[in-house]
């Protein structure tokens, strides 16, 4: 694993949005632009954007219970060879589980949710959560593939 200390202390870019699903597409487009400008190829930019979409969707649905007046801050840290994204929010802390997701079992249980975290972990090189004084943070890192 590469050293995450290479990222700057302060974000290169940040946005704050209300907890509204109608804003997800904007977040996805913005992430795609930033990652593409930062030399991720189109396929990787698409996947990173999807991981951010999943993370913010989880915050809106699970941490904020679909309340539309709560705040979410997304910070982008850029460094040579990688990108770090931190998502700050309050509300319920994340339901963290390392249990391997079995899609066949989920189908039998007629479950509709639970795939988002699997997508995030599959796409990103690192996904971690922490809660400090009631403020939750989801941190994700993606390294560029070396040719």
């Amino acid at each position, binding site marked *: 694993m590469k050293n995450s200390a290479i990222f700057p202390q302060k974000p290169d870019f940040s946005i704050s949005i209300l907890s509204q699903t109608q804003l997800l*597409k904007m977040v996805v487009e913005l992430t795609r632009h930033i990652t593409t400008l930062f030399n991720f190829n189109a396929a990787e930019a698409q996947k990173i954007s999807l991981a951010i979409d999943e993370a913010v969707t989880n915050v809106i649905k699970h941490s904020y219970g679909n309340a539309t007046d709560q705040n979410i801050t997304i910070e982008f840290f850029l460094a040579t060879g990688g990108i770090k994204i931190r998502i700050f929010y309050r509300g319920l802390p994340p339901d963290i589980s390392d249990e391997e997701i079995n*899609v066949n079992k989920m189908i039998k249980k007629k*479950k509709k949710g639970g795939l*988002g975290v*699997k997508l995030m972990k*599959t796409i990103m090189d690192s996904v971690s959560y922490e809660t400090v004084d009631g403020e939750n943070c989801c941190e994700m890192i993606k390294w560029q593939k070396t040719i």
Partner: protein
Amino acid sequence: MKNFQIRSKIVNGVAVLYLKGHLDAHQVARFEKELIRLIKEKNFNILINGQDLNYITSAGMGIVMGYVDEVREKGGDIKLCSLSERVYETFDLVGFTEIYDFIQNEQVAIEKFSNISPKA
């Protein structure tokens, strides 16, 4: 222009659901509503045509996951066809490509249903 559009038609006894655009958590209720309507009307052979679908998140895939067992219990199935490489890859990331039938074009997909006879 709408970010996401959905329409359906019945072709040789198969309910074909055409998804177009950007399917995320904001739009997913419309997809689920239409799928529920088809199942309530006893359409258990369901084909999702994603030719014009350019983006899907776990919210949309979760709907497919949540209803496939019900239609399979009734002798039908949910299959998918005509997906772009990008959308197919998203399904592949969660392992759906090993569980669902992904077919390259609609006509072949509809023919595949001819071997299935839904229970009354």
